[in-house]
């Protein structure tokens, strides 16, 4: 596990990833456990229907029908808890990628080996991508397996599509954090800016049906790429995947020269 910067970074994250994976499986298990009682309470859907429209847009997905497993998971997990968990992991991993190693003063040790700075950036990026996809995978697997136990049957292919979009959402903001970390070495800033932008992107996408200005820029929001085309019902939206992929590629392409041109903190 010490054969490359990528493997070493994954090794460092081992316990962290295990903790996240267990937590996500438990969260999904909780939702699955509550499902039977939600299903037998049609008033839940009425409750959501009665919410003010802005409120409903923000905290639920407007069209969701809470009496089906798909609608329930969409409202309860995919519109809030899932993205928050994946974003926290991806942003903090991205921000710590370069800046964290500088904060711990180990960057001099790492770079004194014949390892290019581009290699370090790319390996740290790949570790963040693998970690994010692993967590989304665990969440998807939990949804299908634990859902089956609780009679909350979800179509595995659609769950996989939703998880792909969820992972890409995380990687987009994680890559932004990594690019900032590479260019500045400042972990706090690299965590803070993507977090704020993620909240803004969320609001833009959620309130787009109500606010004209947001509707015009809605498709630029990574949250639109994530849930805008309803992957849990419609499957993978390849155009959104492409937009996310390009965004990620541009951010990594900026991260490399960002790190190459600056001083490394001692």
């Amino acid at each position, binding site marked *: 596990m*010490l054969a490359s910067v990528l493997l070493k970074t994954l090794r460092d994250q081992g316990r962290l990833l295990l903790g996240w994976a267990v937590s996500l499986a438990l969260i999904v298990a909780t939702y699955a456990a509550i499902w039977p009682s939600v299903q037998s309470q049609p008033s839940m859907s009425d409750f959501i229907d009665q919410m003010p429209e802005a409120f409903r847009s923000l905290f639920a997905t407007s069209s969701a029908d809470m009496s089906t497993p798909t609608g329930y998971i969409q409202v309860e997990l995919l519109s809030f808890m899932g993205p928050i968990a994946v974003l926290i992991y991806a942003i903090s991993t991205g921000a710590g990628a370069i800046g964290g190693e500088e904060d*711990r003063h180990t960057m001099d*040790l790492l770079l004194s*080996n014949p390892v290019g700075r581009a290699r370090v950036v790319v390996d740290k990026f790949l570790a963040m991508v693998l970690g994010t996809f692993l967590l989304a995978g665990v969440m998807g697997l939990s949804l299908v397996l634990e859902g089956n136990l609780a009679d909350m049957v979800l179509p595995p292919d659609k769950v996989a599509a939703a998880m792909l979009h969820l992972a890409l959402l995380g990687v987009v903001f994680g890559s932004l954090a990594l690019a900032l970390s590479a260019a500045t070495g400042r972990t706090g800033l690299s965590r803070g800016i993507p977090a704020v932008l993620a909240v803004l992107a969320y609001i833009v996408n959620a309130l787009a049906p109500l606010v004209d200005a947001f509707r015009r820029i809605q498709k630029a929001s990574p949250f639109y790429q994530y849930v805008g085309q309803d992957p849990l019902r419609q499957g993978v939206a390849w155009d959104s995947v492409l937009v996310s992929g390009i965004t990620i590629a541009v951010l990594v392409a900026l991260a490399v020269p960002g790190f190459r041109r600056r*001083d490394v903190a*001692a």
Partner: protein
Amino acid sequence: MGAESMVQLAGLTKRFGRNTALDDVSLTIGPGEVFGYLGPNGAGKTTTIRLLMGMLRPSAGTANVLGLDSWRQSRDVHRLVGYVPGEPALYERLTGSQHVAYCSHLRHRDDRQLAAEVAARLDLDLDRPARTLSRGNRQKLAIVLAVMSRPRLLVLDEPTSGIDPLVQQVFHSILREHTADGGSALFSSHVLGEVERVADRIGVVRQGKLVAVERLQDLAARSLHRVRARFGEEVSRAEFAGVPGVRDLQVDGRTLSCNAPQAALDALLKLVSAREVEDFECSEAPLEEMFLGYYGMEQHSGSPSARKVETAAGRTGHAG
């Protein structure tokens, strides 16, 4: 010398904002040479070293290792160089052996054998995680990691601070083996005593400027003698002040003390013997004291005990 030289710094300058940490430093280190790089903390030693390692981008000038530019070709440079950073930071959860394995992989070499040998000579246990190591043992591990790939150049930022004298001797012999094979070293310290046994030449950096480069041999030839005399009568300072080369002259009633280079001893002795002498003492001053006298490296007024004073400031961030 050109590409023949191991290290070549030319007009190397580094500014952090408005603060000039290193100002127009030029020097050359040849094959097989150990260059002692001396200066008080915060003078620019660490900045020089981190420029040479390609961690910092020069504001002006260049640093070369065997003709390769430290900034633009840092990967190639790192293949030739072993580096001991000033404050050796390690991966706290990894053991010594794991550090060796990781760095070996990154270098695409298998250096475990030599690493184990060096660790044994330094009396370092490679099986302990870095977080449990004392400061001295961390330093030893950093040395193991630097020398295990048999680099052409060793860049050592205060490598022996925190290491006890016996182990320092082992380190010195490792360094001598390295130079015997044609390897060079840049060895920084804030104490001359640390490098005087191994360095061929010494450079002194103060406030970002390289103020002197001396061969250690020449320095020794110019070494000062400490002269003390007690007279049977009162003497005046004016009688002795005229001797050329005499330094730190103090006359207090019937006693005289001063430092004098070899060339001044004859004139001084004749003046002293013109008086009634009760006691006379002449001894060679330690190299260090003389060196401090020349270049004002002392951080506190004159007391030799102050020379080991190490402040935490100046070692952090960009101050070095």
